[in-house]
């Protein structure tokens, strides 16, 4: 049976859920939240989505999408162009190699994997930023930023699981 353009576009939007979610989280990280003390340690929302989709739906999140999401974040935040893209791509690339291990594992194992990889890629980002600016970027806000990202993982991944089960389960 032929499917109409409405169904086709609905299917297209549904299968773009991972990409859309990563871009929305990029935008969320540059919004003015006006919460006391949050700005310097704003969590890396989009790393959570990249980690999640790279494990569960790598077919729906190409490296190109990760790259452009990182570039968008760099442009909107005014940071060194390419730095966030590099950090995101490294996380995506490493998770792809560990996918067979992580897929199907209980939640706490996946979270544990996230808590190993995020400090690693953030540290690489810190090195790049320090070299770029020719200064040592202060480490304390960086540590707080990583801790906050790790603590947020269960909440955001919960929403992503819901999206995966409702929109992507048969695609």
């Amino acid at each position, binding site marked *: 049976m032929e499917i109409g353009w409405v169904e086709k576009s609905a299917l297209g939007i549904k299968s773009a859920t991972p990409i859309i979610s990563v871009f929305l989280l990029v*935008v969320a*990280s*540059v*919004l*003015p*939240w*006006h*919460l*006391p*003390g*949050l*700005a*310097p*340690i*704003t969590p*890396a929302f989009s790393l959570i989505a990249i980690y999640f989709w790279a494990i569960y739906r790598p077919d729906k999140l*190409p*490296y*190109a999408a*990760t*790259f452009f999401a*990182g*570039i*968008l974040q760099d*442009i*909107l*935040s*005014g*940071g*060194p*162009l*390419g*730095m966030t*893209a*590099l950090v995101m*791509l*490294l996380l*995506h*690339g490493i998770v*792809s190699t560990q996918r067979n291990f992580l897929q199907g594992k209980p939640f706490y194992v996946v979270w544990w994997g996230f808590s190993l990889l995020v400090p690693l890629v953030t540290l690489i*980002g*810190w090195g*790049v*930023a320090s070299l*770029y*600016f020719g*200064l040592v*970027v*202060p480490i*304390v*806000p*960086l540590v*707080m*930023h990583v801790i906050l990202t790790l603590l947020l993982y269960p909440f955001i991944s919960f929403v992503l699981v819901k999206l995966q089960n409702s929109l992507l389960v048969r695609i």
Partner: protein
Amino acid sequence: MRTIQGLALLQILFFRFFFQRSSFFIFIGFAVALIVISQVQPLSLEKIRTSITDIASPVLGFISRPASSVSNIADNIESIVAVRKENAKLREENSRLMLWQPLVSHLESENLALRKLLNVIPDPDSKFTTARIVGDAGGPFVRTLLVAAGENQGVYKGQAVITHGGLVGRIVEAGNSSARILLITDLNSRIPIVLEKGRNRGILVGLNTDTLEIQFLPLNAQPDIGDRLVTSGAGGVFPPGLPVGYISDISEESIQVEPWVTFDRLEFVSILDYILPGIMPSTRRAGLADMID
């Protein structure tokens, strides 16, 4: 037949693996190349950056409204809790300020008379544009804000940004309808300041945290905790006398400064069009970009 099929499958798998891996390395290469280009030739990519922020700023402005209402709820709860304490504090402050009022008006008229007597050249006037903040670059690497006003509204690179509390930062990128502010707390921010007491000059350096640090203060300077500092006007980027903050801590290694501005509460900022007569090109007021770069 089966062997041929198996070989074809292997071939497909190999190409898929190779393509996936190579696309990873290609994009890593792009990212590294962009980092290098933006470090070596920052101006070459500026046009692209500002064009994209011009497109994104209305979208961010639209989305940031609900975000700011979330913060308003938090603010309301906080202010209800603190209202009694705040009221007592304001009453006390008000009675103290009432004592100052006659003294200030006396000093103002005296100052004016003395200036006239000495034939002092007045500081140039500054006009300002007020704009809404639509983006706040969160994260530990940069401290910048995005405002929904650009060159079309008279906002140019190099202009000082203030709020009623004091100095916020300066414009580092200006598109047609959006501009980026480098906050004074950013790691790359350097502000020439002067201590109100003692008139010693120094440079205020951002640390990507909520406090700042004074460097290059003369050795004979004797700063105290609570001393206030203002912009010195050196370099011509900032008008002199803008309040910046006060000294909050002095140790062997550093002098810490607490800024007047509470950055997480900012919703609107004013961008000053300040120009020193005779220095700037008349066509582009406060277009300090060329001088800074």
